[in-house]
């Protein structure tokens, strides 16, 4: 029962969308369509991603990763997390579980936030879209300016969080 309580608002929302459909209420229908568009992506993409993360978690030992992207990894570690982020696809909330995984496997704080920055602004699938619609010059310029900016954010976050018992929690 307590479990279902967390879904109360979602149930109400879906009921309203359902009623809109039955009574032909256009605004409700449009909202329902929007919801379906996102939900489709989410239910196809996220469970698979979480399974992937679970597998990664049980198979890859912490020491292996920590050596490459941990406190002592330096620029190479930062380069690695940026590369990893660039190869991925999906919305920002898809990056949080990966960030949790990197943290659990011993990544430095700085590299966690650099990963989030690279994931949100430099994913290759996204860049190809950007070049198509906004041109190569725009895309290149934006990427080159953004890269140092989110690296700085990584350092700032690490500086702030270093002695604050920071952790990425498992949801």
């Amino acid at each position: 029962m307590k479990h279902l309580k967390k879904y109360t608002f979602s149930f109400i929302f879906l009921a309203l969308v359902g009623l809109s459909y039955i009574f032909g209420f256009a605004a409700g229908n449009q909202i329902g369509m929007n919801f379906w568009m996102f939900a489709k992506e989410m239910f196809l993409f996220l469970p698979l991603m979480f399974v992937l993360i679970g597998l990664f978690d049980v198979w890859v030992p912490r020491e292996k990763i920590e050596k490459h992207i941990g406190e002592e990894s330096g620029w190479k570690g930062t380069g690695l997390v940026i590369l990893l982020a660039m190869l991925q696809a999906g919305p920002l909330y898809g990056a949080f579980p990966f960030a949790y995984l990197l943290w659990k496997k011993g990544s430095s704080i700085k590299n966690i936030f650099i990963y989030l920055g690279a994931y949100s602004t430099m994913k290759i699938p996204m860049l190809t879209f950007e070049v198509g619609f906004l041109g190569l010059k725009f895309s290149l310029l934006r990427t080159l300016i953004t890269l140092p900016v989110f690296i700085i954010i990584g350092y700032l976050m690490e500086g702030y969080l270093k002695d604050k018992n920071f952790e990425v929690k498992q949801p």
Partner: protein
Amino acid sequence: MLLISIITFVLLGLSFLFDVQKTLKGIKKGLTMFMNLLPVLLLMLAFISIVLFLVPNELLIRYMGQDAGIEGWVMAALLGSVALIPGFIAYPLCGVLIKSGVAYTTIAVFITILTMVGLVTLPLEAKFFGWKTSIIRNLLSFIAAIFIGFIMSLFL
């Protein structure tokens, strides 16, 4: 999308071949995380679908305006932080915005904010990082995006 599905299934198959117990543990772990996030995710999506309905493209064009000054950037930044538009809609939309006279620098701010800052996804982010850290990260990214717009205006 297709690629990640294929990769997952191939790895899943390999994993089963090597160690069934370990694989089941991994799957359970992943799906538990997903189930724990599901209530927040559903709420988030419901909220986004309503916002997306209330804010049509024409409104974005009107508010981001024609001039590339700090005002346009701040407007783009504010709109970008509340919006959560997937890339395959955002880029065509930006194409439309450019054609209707919105400056490239404003678009740069909008894109950066759209991808780095998420007010709507904040409750989700907080599940991983805690509220304080999430808010600081979003605030820093917000400032950074406006800064990026400024630097870009020196080149474009």
